[in-house]
């Protein structure tokens, strides 16, 4: 348990020191949300209707952006192999890194989402549901993203391939996230069946994705 926490704290410290990751993700989130009305037209009622889906898509793409660096830095300087030989199972290493990614990339995006929602004319009453559904669904993004990151580790032009591999896995999260948000916006319960499925996806990803990611990392070592 302590080794896990230490690994997470190390990753958090590195991310804070590097600084760029969180800022770039937030900047990308803003840029994507900004170009949407430019493409769709500025009509506020239309944007308000589309806002739940647009915000979730922007979240997905922004989370995707920092994934290829998840294992990259450690693989480069050999620390990944050292971690693999250490006391922590490789599955726990992958989980710790995915959790650190969630804390440094997804969570800031989720907290910034209401600001982006203003740009898309989402009603203020929906902001709570927006943040909650995204907070519940975003761990799935980090953990399933870790699978894609581990599969494409070391590939020179792995970026587009990473997106191609990870976005199909993201699709259920997107579908249930937008549905849960829309239900809450239209007066239904926040804790609706889609919300619970979203939560289930995050929990399942948290448990199963590190296994797949660790297997993919081991495949890279041999």
């Amino acid at each position, binding site marked *: 348990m302590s080794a896990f926490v230490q690994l997470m704290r190390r990753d958090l410290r590195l991310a804070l020191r590097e600084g760029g990751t969180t800022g770039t993700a937030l900047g990308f989130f803003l840029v994507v949300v900004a170009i949407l009305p430019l493409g769709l037209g500025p009509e506020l009622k239309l944007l308000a209707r589309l806002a739940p889906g647009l915000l979730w898509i922007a979240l997905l793409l922004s989370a995707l952006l920092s994934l290829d660096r998840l294992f990259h830095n450690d693989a480069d300087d050999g620390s990944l192999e050292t971690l693999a030989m250490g006391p922590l199972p490789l599955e726990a290493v992958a989980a710790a890194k995915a959790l650190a990614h969630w804390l440094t990339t997804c969570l800031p995006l989720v907290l910034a989402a209401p600001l982006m929602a203003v740009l898309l004319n989402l009603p203020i009453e929906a902001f709570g549901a927006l943040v909650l559904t995204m907070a519940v669904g975003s761990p799935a993004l980090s953990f399933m993203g870790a*699978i894609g990151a581990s*599969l*494409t580790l070391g*590939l020179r*032009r*792995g970026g587009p*391939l990473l997106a*191609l*591999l990870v*976005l*199909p*896995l993201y*699709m259920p999260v997107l579908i249930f996230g937008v549905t849960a948000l829309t239900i809450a916006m239209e007066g239904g319960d926040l804790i609706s069946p889609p919300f619970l499925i979203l939560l289930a996806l995050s929990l399942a990803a948290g448990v199963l994705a590190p296994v*797949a990611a660790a*297997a*993919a990392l081991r*495949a*890279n070592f*041999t």
Partner: protein
Amino acid sequence: MRLANPTEFMALADAILPWLIALTAALFAVGVYLAFFVAPADYQQGETVRIMFIHVPFAWLAMMGYSLIALSSIGSLIWRHPLADVAAKAALPIGASFTLLALITGALWGKPMWGAYWVWDARLTSVLILFLLYIGLIGLWQAIEDPSRAGRAAAILAIVGFVNVPIIKFSVDWWNTLHQGASVIRLDGPSIHPSILIPLLVMTAAFTLLYFVLQLIAMKTEILRRRVAALQAARASGAQASPVAAG
């Protein structure tokens, strides 16, 4: 297992293929005759209902192909069966093509039947995701140079993506979809009249055998491709290599 030896496999494939091809051709002959001349036209859809006799087999093979790839991937990861990688890699373009054909024939059928080439209902969306998984797997094989590393990575992705296959199967039950509900593989048995069910089953059997013919040929090609690569590598390093040992 004797079949784990590529040379033995090649010999076995060479022995089986002529019979398999003949049987496939025979089944197609029977199936096409039944589909076009025996099965009745639908009272609502007319002759366009005959697209079903290729659309359903394509869709079935899209899922069967992915299931076989997932199975081979388990064999590759857990038992390190030497031919599992080859089987999985060979199956990818075949399965992807059948998936694409299922989507296209479905669109061609959807226009006269529903009025739209494409709708975003659960069945169509999940089959599209299946196609994306195939493309992703092919991309992974292309991107990673070392074949054994590529095989392990693709195996992991194939197993992760397998969750999509039951979703496709049950999507018409779980969601309110435009697509036809399950009418063949149901707990209560098929709900189609035999005059249409029999041609459908014959065509499905014919296409399934075609799949295995293509799969065997593709596996043979892949084994030969790896032998060539091994010979080229050996020649590049100046060593003498026997073709049998390199297989």
